[in-house]
């Protein structure tokens, strides 16, 4: 009987954690101006010319890339299981779009409010993540309302309403883009393309906090996610308070997606691909997949963003280009390779 054991859980996630640490160090040291280990060690001393680059620019950016990847991957994983559909992710369902719209609407209609910063000592808390969180949550509630059949959430209706909602939100954002003046439209591009450039450790730390909070919340429901893969009725019969669990998970995903979109805009592909790669490699026990997708998402986006910075330096590629460019072929390879041996997904009912 090959089922999830403690040693498998710890072994795989331990290995991934190690990879993540290596990624963090290597990505920080890699850049248009590469540093050797020895140089970077000396760069930690204040007088070194690279000191500022390393600590003020690269390290926070790498930390941000890691947590954004982790949050997107776990949210995608959870949404796939909740919707019983391999196509689900925050992006496709319009939740990221809703979060962007929330942030943009806040900046446009309450410029005064959004210009203020809640001072917390030297740190500043921006209201943008909150507006994005509200946008994400509202999107989640809306697409869910449209997908109820006899009081049960129908997975295909949900996917359909999500896809249509996403189109609608994208149209709204494009519309805003056309009516805005040039400078505002420029900053709107940031939301649409996604970028991980940051300068504030504080906003990076806040993003870590939001995503970790969401992660613990999701992990609590790991077993329920397995049961929900069998359908709502089976899950009920096996002891899952389906409505409550689903509400919790939708809120957790909204929190994570809102926090991520607020700091990095819309970065696609991570939430869709990383969970699938892990499902193909590790099976479908969500107690294993949740921490694994957190770590693997961090590793994947950590490297993707490093490549985005380096490949055409000094020009920076949008990170979404890199995630799709490397992610898609790898995924195709896995799908082909594993798909020859067994059916990978069954249409949910």
């Amino acid at each position, binding site marked *: *009987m*090959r*089922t*999830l*054991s*403690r040693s498998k*859980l710890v072994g795989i996630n331990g290995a991934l954690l190690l990879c993540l640490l290596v990624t963090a160090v290597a990505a920080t040291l890699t850049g248009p101006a590469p540093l050797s280990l020895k140089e970077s060690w000396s760069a930690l001393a204040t007088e070194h010319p690279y000191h500022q680059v390393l600590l003020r620019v690269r390290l926070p950016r790498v930390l941000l890339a890691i947590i954004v990847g982790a949050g997107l991957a776990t949210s995608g994983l959870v949404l*796939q*299981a909740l919707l*019983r*559909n*391999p196509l689900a992710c925050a992006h496709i369902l319009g939740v990221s779009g809703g979060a962007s719209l929330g942030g943009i609407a806040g900046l446009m209609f309450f410029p005064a409010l959004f210009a203020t910063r809640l001072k917390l000592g030297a740190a500043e808390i921006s209201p943008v993540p909150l507006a994005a969180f509200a946008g994400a949550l509202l999107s989640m509630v809306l697409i869910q309302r449209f997908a109820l059949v*006899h009081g049960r959430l129908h*997975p295909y209706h949900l996917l359909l309403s999500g896809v249509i909602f996403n189109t609608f939100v994208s149209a709204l954002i494009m519309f805003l883009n056309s009516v805005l003046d040039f400078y505002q439209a420029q900053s709107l591009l940031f939301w649409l393309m996604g970028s991980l450039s940051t300068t504030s450790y504080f906003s990076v730390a806040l993003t870590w906090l939001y995503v970790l909070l969401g992660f613990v919340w999701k*992990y*609590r429901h*790991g*077993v*329920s996610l*397995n*049961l929900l*893969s*069998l*359908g709502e*009725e*089976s899950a*009920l*019969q*096996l*002891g*899952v*308070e389906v409505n409550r669990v689903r509400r919790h998970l939708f809120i957790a995903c909204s929190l994570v997606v809102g926090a991520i979109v607020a700091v990095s805009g819309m970065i696609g592909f991570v939430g869709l691909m990383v969970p699938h790669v892990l*499902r193909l490699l590790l*099976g*479908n*026990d969500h*107690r294993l997949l949740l921490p694994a997708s957190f770590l693997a998402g961090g590793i994947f986006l950590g490297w993707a963003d490093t490549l985005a910075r380096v490949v055409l330096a000094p020009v920076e590629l949008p990170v979404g280009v890199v995630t799709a460019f490397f992610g898609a072929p790898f995924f195709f390879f896995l799908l082909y390779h594993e798909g020859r041996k*067994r*059916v*990978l*997904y*069954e*249409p*949910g*009912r």
Partner: protein
Amino acid sequence: MSPVVEIRDVAFAYGRRAALSGISLAIQPGERVAVLGPNGSGKSTLIKILSRTLEPAAGEVRVLGRPLPSFARCELSRKVAVVPQETQASFPYTAAEIVLMGRASYLPAFGLDGARDREIARDSMRLTGTLELADRYLHELSSGEKQRVILARALAQEAEILLLDEPTSFLDIRHQIEIHELLVRLNRQKGLTIVAALHDFNLASLYFPRLVLLESGRISSQGAPAEVLTAERIRAVYGARVRVLGELGERPQVLPLPKGPEQAD
């Protein structure tokens, strides 16, 4: 003895279409009850009401003396296990993983299955003859094998009441017999109360001491097989011509009477 399941005046409707109305039923501990009735007569709905998969629009269901809504879901799934008509996993799980899902309500938060959970899962797979399927994927099994895996999952719940929704409809005759004999054995040895929605009169008659016949959401008749399974009643409820062999015996068997030319008598 107080009934283990008690239904009083239960009604349910899908939208405006009434599925059950005025159902009252008491089931004693250790009983085996088969629910019969034409397609759409409310058999599956009744099973779902008993497992609180659907909430009744009116009336009350009590399980083990307590109103059904007073149970937390995880508590209820340790008392009542269900074998649904069909199970589909949207992501591939192995048979062993599926059976272990029956232990979910026993796990602590953030918990993994322990040695005891594995042992119980293995025992119930042994009972249903599915141990050799443990590492195969559910959706790659035949429908009969699949159904036995789901039965193993239900047994792993260690419940006192087992509800089955047409558990043997897709099975060949050998597996039908095996499953029903296993159910009888579990009923006798462990005192498991069994309620099964069935299509097959003959299996119901052979393996269930008490039958409940539904007709458009109401109880048309109930009692021992010989009382329920008469040619007239089956014609009235199903609109089908049948002959009942051994009509007044203990386990009458129902034979369809085709309308064709070979219908000699």
